[in-house]
């Protein structure tokens, strides 16, 4: 324990971050756009995982409903962009709101809407804990899923296609490497924010509330408020990932809201290492790589994912990062 392991984890994190940059740059150099797309998908899924890691890892809140925020982010993009591409305003009254193809605006809307949804869902579900919390978040996820299916204005079950990727000032987002750079930068920013929160007063109190809620209450901090704030921040980050994911595929569908999506985001976090800064990145990498290399062999590739997950849960409680870098302890 201690500094050697802390250093090991930092080294590992740096390697992961560099590899995630080097592979698509290499692919760009040798003109392999598919690999760049794969890396972009990885970065976006990792971002969704970073969001969940805030609630699940730091806060100990096992949310089986994070697909809600992923989906809201996706539909924020889909709705705004579809109105922009059909030149129909979103709302006519009381003010006229037009659709948009601008990524920054879409991101803000995605994060705002996900944050509001997280506030409402969290305010209700955080009154429960344990398996009840899991079930309530799952129930909210299913509500959104069926709502999206039965919403014909935006494609219903078939989903919604966006013909041209949305724009970002100064970049050509249709170029895979430029869109990757954007997603990579946002992932880096989210990781930086996560690292700061981990070490902040809020992070200390949130982590303590996960370990012992009575202790936190006894020093005058209400765990409910901490968890609600964490849940909202968590939902906002996952919502941003949803908007990017929709832009990557130029397509949104109710599948983004499905409980399988929630489950996959949980798998990223657990595979990589719960509450570890780079846990979701490593977890998403394993997921995307297995999907790519085994998905071609058999549509039942999830069985191998299951085997890896089982191995991690049984033998490496700190996830893959814990296995390599050891237990994380901060000594000051």
């Amino acid at each position, binding site marked *: 324990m201690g500094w050697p392991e802390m250093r090991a984890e930092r080294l590992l994190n740096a390697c992961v971050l560099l590899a995630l940059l080097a592979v698509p740059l290499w692919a760009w150099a040798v003109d392999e756009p598919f690999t760049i797309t794969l890396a972009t998908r990885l970065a976006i899924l990792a971002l969704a995982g970073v969001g969940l890691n805030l609630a699940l890892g730091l806060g100990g809140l096992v949310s089986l409903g994070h697909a809600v925020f992923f989906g809201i982010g996706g539909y924020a993009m889909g709705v705004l962009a579809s109105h922009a591409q059909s030149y129909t305003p979103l709302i006519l009254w009381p003010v006229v709101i037009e659709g948009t193809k601008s990524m920054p605006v879409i991101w803000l809307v995605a994060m705002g809407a996900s944050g509001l949804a997280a506030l409402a869902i969290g305010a209700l579900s955080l009154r429960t804990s344990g398996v009840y919390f899991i079930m309530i978040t799952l129930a909210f996820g299913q509500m959104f899923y069926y709502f999206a299916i039965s919403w014909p204005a935006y494609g219903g079950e078939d989903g919604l296609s966006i013909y041209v990727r949305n724009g970002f000032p100064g970049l050509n987002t249709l170029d895979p490497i430029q869109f990757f750079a954007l997603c990579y930068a946002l992932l880096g920013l989210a990781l930086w924010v996560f690292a*700061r*929160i981990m*070490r*902040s*007063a*809020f*992070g*200390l*109190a949130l*982590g*303590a509330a996960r*370990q*012992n809620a*009575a*202790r*936190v*209450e*006894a*020093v*005058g*901090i*209400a*765990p409910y408020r*901490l968890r609600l*704030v964490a849940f909202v921040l968590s939902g906002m980050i996952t919502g941003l990932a949803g908007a990017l994911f929709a832009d990557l595929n130029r397509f949104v569908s109710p599948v983004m809201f499905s409980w399988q999506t929630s489950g996959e985001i949980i798998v990223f976090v657990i595979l990589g290492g719960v509450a570890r800064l780079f846990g979701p990145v490593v977890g998403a990498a394993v997921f995307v790589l297995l999907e790519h290399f085994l998905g071609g062999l058999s549509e039942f590739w999830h069985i191998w994912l299951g085997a890896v997950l089982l191995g991690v849960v049984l033998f490496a409680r700190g996830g893959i990062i814990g296995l390599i870098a050891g237990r994380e*302890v*901060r*000594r*000051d």
Partner: protein
Amino acid sequence: MTEVLLDIRGITKRFGAVTASDAVSLTLRRGEIHALIGPNGAGKTTLIGQIAGSLRPDAGSVWLDGRDVTALDPAARARAGLARTFQISSLAMEMTVVQNAVLGALGARGRVMRFFRDVMRDPALRAVAREALERVGLLEVAAQRVADLSHGQRRQLEVAVALTQAPKVFLMDEPMAGLGAEGSAQMTRLLDGLRQHAPILLVEHDMDAVFALADRVSVLVYGRVIASGAPEEIRRDARVREAYLGDEVLP
């Protein structure tokens, strides 16, 4: 008369047919240690729950420094100046000793919603934490994980965290629990000095400690305070001997 900092007025709590607290009234004055003793099942835990705020009394009220806190939850009572320690050490086990102490300082000062600054580098919070750890003798193990501490050290850390809160009142639930003779003596010395900071309502089974420390002793039996007074009076009280102390030889 000295100032009353904690005033418990006629607290009653029933669970079905059982009256766990029966019109209990107690006061805690500045500078004193008021010990609450009683046999198992006397309702001490229920009473502590109502003072700390995790249980709501059916009747009666709790006043902290002249303010009615009966309707406040545990966190709000802590912010109002009540620092409690638990019978079974209740700490953030995966965190270090100093992190637990900083957490205490943080809560009392209401600086929780800060997201970007490194909390462990906050000089004010660190100073409070270090001072409390030094006071209980845990400074050398400040960087250790709580899970790696001995039982006795965890008992001391409970007190240290309460100290970081700079409270108006301490509520201590069996701080001697599980300590050996030497540990108890050490804890007794520590608590003896703490009453200068804030008075202590001490719920304790260790009679040596109680009679060494208490300025006043109240005896709880079947949810009622059957006697309250100076330690010598309690020692001589026939009802107390009969109800609680039995044939035990008192120190």
